[in-house]
């Protein structure tokens, strides 16, 4: 019997977290992957790697401008035309330099667009198709930074906060359907994006493999919000509820 391969769409497929999620998915079972990124050479290298890990999988790659609503809509329509999608992972983003965002409004806008608006446009483009098909999991990567604004990265945090509210609304809209919307909030993860924070060894940064594992697990369970690793759920509960007169003294 021919088993239907899972159809998985990954936006920002060359990000370290997305790449590791893809590896986990193809290790589970061969999949039909659509990789979307900004750099063709990088996407091709990721695609070749995944095909060696899972020769029975199929991989398509697309290069796209992540901020162009027309291109985003066209891509989602094209992919949906081929049939129902099992998983959409929206994983792109970049950690901006907070100080630069304060000085340079263009940098500020770019950070807000890439980390806030762009993920919403992608999610919105796919949500309609998934609602119609009444199946699938839409996974959006937010951040613990979106839980409370703080001076060291509030531009990034506010973009991720936007994604958080958006995901809540979308979950509400699709509550009666079979479509699951999962918001992932990774704590600081050891990826190229955070490498300047890295200390060797026990540094509080979660390994990207661990985060990828909790994303894949959370997605299969259809949890509304997944903190990755789980300890961040507790840490952020405290951070969110810390009274302002204490919070303002923290150098975070």
């Amino acid at each position, binding site marked *: 019997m021919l088993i239907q391969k899972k159809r998985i769409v990954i936006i920002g497929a060359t990000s370290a977290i997305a790449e590791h999620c893809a590896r986990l998915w193809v290790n589970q079972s061969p999949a039909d992957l659509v990789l979307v990124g900004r750099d063709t050479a*990088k996407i091709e290298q990721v695609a070749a*790697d995944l095909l060696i890990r899972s020769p029975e999988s199929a991989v398509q790659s697309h290069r796209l401008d992540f901020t162009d609503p027309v291109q985003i809509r066209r891509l989602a329509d094209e992919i949906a035309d081929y049939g129902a999608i099992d998983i959409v992972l929206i994983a792109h983003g970049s950690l901006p330099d907070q100080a630069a965002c304060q000085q340079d409004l263009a940098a500020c806008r770019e950070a807000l667009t890439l980390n806030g608006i762009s993920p919403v446009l992608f999610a919105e483009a796919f949500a309609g198709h998934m609602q119609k098909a009444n199946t699938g999991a839409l996974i959006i990567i937010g951040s613990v930074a979106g839980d409370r604004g703080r001076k060291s990265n509030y531009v990034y945090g506010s973009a991720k906060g936007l994604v958080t509210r958006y995901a809540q609304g979308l979950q509400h809209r699709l509550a009666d359907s079979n479509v699951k919307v999962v918001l992932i909030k990774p704590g600081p993860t050891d990826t190229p994006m955070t490498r300047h924070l890295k200390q*060797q060894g026990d540094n509080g940064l979660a390994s990207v493999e661990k985060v990828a594992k909790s994303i894949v697990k959370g997605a299969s369970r259809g949890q509304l919000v997944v903190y990755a690793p789980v300890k961040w759920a507790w840490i952020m509960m405290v951070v969110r509820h810390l009274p302002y007169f204490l919070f303002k003294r923290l150098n975070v």
Partner: protein
Amino acid sequence: MVAVSSWGRLSQSEHQVHFLTHRHPAPVQIRETAPGLAHGMGRSYGDAALNPGGCLWNTTSLDRFISLDERTGQLACETGVLLRDIQRLMMPRGWILPVTPGTQLITVGGAIANDVHGKNHHVLGCFGDHVLRLTLLRTDGEIIECGPDLLPDWFAATVGGIGLTGVILSATIQLRRIAGPWLNTETIAYASLDQFFQQADDSEADWEHTVSWIDCCVGSQGRGLFMRGNPVEVENRAEPRDRSFGMPFVPPFSLVNRWSLRLFNAAYFNLKKRKAAPRIMHYQPFFYPLDNLLEWNRMYGPKGFFQYQCVVPRETGDDAIQAMLGDIARSGEGSFLAVLKTFGNRQPVGMLSFPQPGVTLALDFSNKAMQTAQLFARLDAIVREAGGRIYLAKDARMPRDLFEAGYPRLNEFLPYRDRGISSAMSRRLMGF
């Protein structure tokens, strides 16, 4: 700047760490940040992969497979792929890495740069013997493709060249056919060095993997457990599950001391001696017994530890090993992790590769400053006298003259060095 230690945890120096994430931007990234040094999993024990105060190019995110020919078993991958990932991917497809050391948690680039060896050296040589091609990136941006049949001089300099000829970006490896993950193994107790050599010689022809654990507490005659194994086809046996435990913190002092050592070694020897019957083992516990004990290097406490690994020629080997074991037992130092193994009669590919025909002894020592240095000076004298050498992947302290005497191809190697690359080890042993 971040603090980086090597596996021996002897130092915690600040480094500027740059992560290489993709192949094509690497030349620009490296040219802009040189001078520096490639750094993988940091499993070298000493200072081979350290560059205190300077730049490290971390290669662990360059971990993609590039191409695979399932008919011929030729696998091309990026430099940061772990040997573990190759084994996991290829074992179910009937292929295995021909040569792996005692841990699979190292990168392909590191395996080449240290030209690592394993328990089957007498049959299959070193890791570098199975590399067909490698891509070497020089800090000036030049890319050199080399292999045993393409620019073989560059290849011989880079295999075992401890990262000093350039940054290895990717490699093509010839894998080896295997029936499955199982090995037929035997453990045989020996009560003297003579018995060890006898076992080693008898086993060489019929056994692919040989190694021995040696009790370093009992003096110059030694006693230990000789282990040997051959791949075997076993049907329908469940593979062990992955379970790993971590050493959760660094104890305030070394857990390895003369009392714990004697106790452990005697218990281990007697326990294993009684369970010496042949048995079927999975490749992972046989090849990589410590890989499930994460960060075991922490058990030596905050001061870290040295590993002393030397090889001495067979003609002088018997006396030299006896003399070293005597000195070690008298010092009361040493560790559980002591290995004695004969190498096959073959020359390695690399100009600075470690293995040579003879017998190799490897031992861990808690770092006790002067006391340890004095013991090492005595061991160095024995190695020098016997015409042996010390393994660069393990070393943090050998004197320069011993290095020069042990590695006669050094002058042949030096012209291939990349001027934009230097390490704590290269400055210590080569002056720059």
